[in-house]
């Protein structure tokens, strides 16, 4: 099953890289991601931060300042709440340990803008925006009893960060940034899976 889950990532990467590899203007980044739940996601579902995430972008350099492409990733949120009594029906009460588990896979069309590109600076800031789907898996257990809801929801992303090329005007280097992720999820009284993630990794040309 894990192999099946990963397959769409690999297929997307292969497709995009095959389409643009000849131009020499395609770059990729792979970053570790640490995420903090926000708003009702934090208040109603999970308030633990998530150290289990990865992001990957494949971007086409439209010009010196603007890149467009595809953003993918994975973030796993989990929290186990101590035993408590929950109202589960009109006159029904249930004492249970509540476990919530949420996985988010963003599939986004992304744009990155480098305002200082072309100027001599060892550090280049960037701002980024993305829109697309947040593929979510929400599992909730009372004790060992529960189930999973899988869905795909609208997702928006906005962020900023810096890149530090290994050499002046180098095409590979370090990348560090943060994104605000708005993930719509309106089911069973829940509103969203909004989160803020900070990420760090490497970028490099695909060819």
């Amino acid at each position, binding site marked *: 099953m*894990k192999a099946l*889950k*990963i397959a769409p*990532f*690999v297929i997307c*990467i*292969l497709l995009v*890289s095959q389409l643009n*590899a000849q131009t020499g203007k395609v770059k*990729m980044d*792979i970053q570790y991601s640490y995420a903090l739940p926000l708003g009702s996601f934090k208040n109603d579902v999970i308030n633990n931060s998530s150290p*289990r*995430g*990865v992001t*990957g972008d494949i971007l086409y350099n439209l010009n010196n300042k603007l890149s467009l492409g595809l953003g993918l990733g*994975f973030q*796993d949120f*989990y929290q*186990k709440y101590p*035993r408590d*009594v929950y109202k*589960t*029906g*009109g*006159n*029904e*009460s*249930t*004492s*249970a*340990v509540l*476990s*919530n*588990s949420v*996985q988010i896979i963003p599939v986004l069309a992304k744009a990155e803008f480098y305002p200082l590109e072309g100027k001599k600076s060892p550090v280049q800031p960037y701002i980024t925006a993305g829109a697309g789907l947040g593929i979510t898996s929400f*599992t909730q*257990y*009372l*004790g*060992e*009893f*529960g189930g999973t809801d899988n869905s795909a929801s609208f997702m928006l992303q906005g962020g900023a960060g810096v890149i530090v090329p290994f050499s002046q005007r180098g095409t590979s280097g370090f990348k560090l940034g943060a994104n605000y992720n708005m993930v719509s999820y309106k089911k069973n009284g829940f509103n969203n899976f909004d989160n803020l993630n900070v990420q760090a990794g490497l970028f*490099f040309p*695909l*060819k």
Partner: protein
Amino acid sequence: MKSKHLVIAAFALSTATFFGCTKEPLNNLNQEETRIYVTNKDSTASFSSYKTYSISDSVAVLNNGSSFKDLSPSDQAYIDAVNKYMQQRGYTLVSKESNPDIGIDVNRIYNTATGYYSDYWDGYGGYWDPYYWGYGGYDYYIPSSYGIYQITEGAMSIDMLDLKNAGSKNSIDVIWNGLIRGEGIFNATNADSGVKALFDQSAYLQSN
């Protein structure tokens, strides 16, 4: 091209690593945490109006439509625990011939679900090509009885019956039910804590 493939491999590997690091909720529960304690009550019942109770001396074992009476060590432990917490709440144990206000039944329930590994057999030729055995082009025949599995899940249930008003209502109303599910529930050492949890979340169970 080599570098591109390395990048793809690196991304797939890192993604696989993080999928592997997903926190699986069921793997992070100890046995006690798997259990749930569910109570239901008749909102019209005035539990303080009942003073006496009687409890069955064995449990009903309900197993997919069949039933019989039994008294295993864990059954006895549940009966003892119910007596303990009923009396802590001020109710008096009497024999069933003494017209108790409440009758209490304890039940051990098994539910068995049957499934079939149909996906496994349907694709059998895909992972074991008959050519491998020297019979390329042949089909496999899988007897229909293969691949069937059963999962049995159990529960302990405690019912409180309104005997005080049965005559006037012409029915024996269940005024309270406690249900315990999860791992280790048929272990006698877990009976007391399970029944205690049911009573703890039912503060209205008081005879005065």
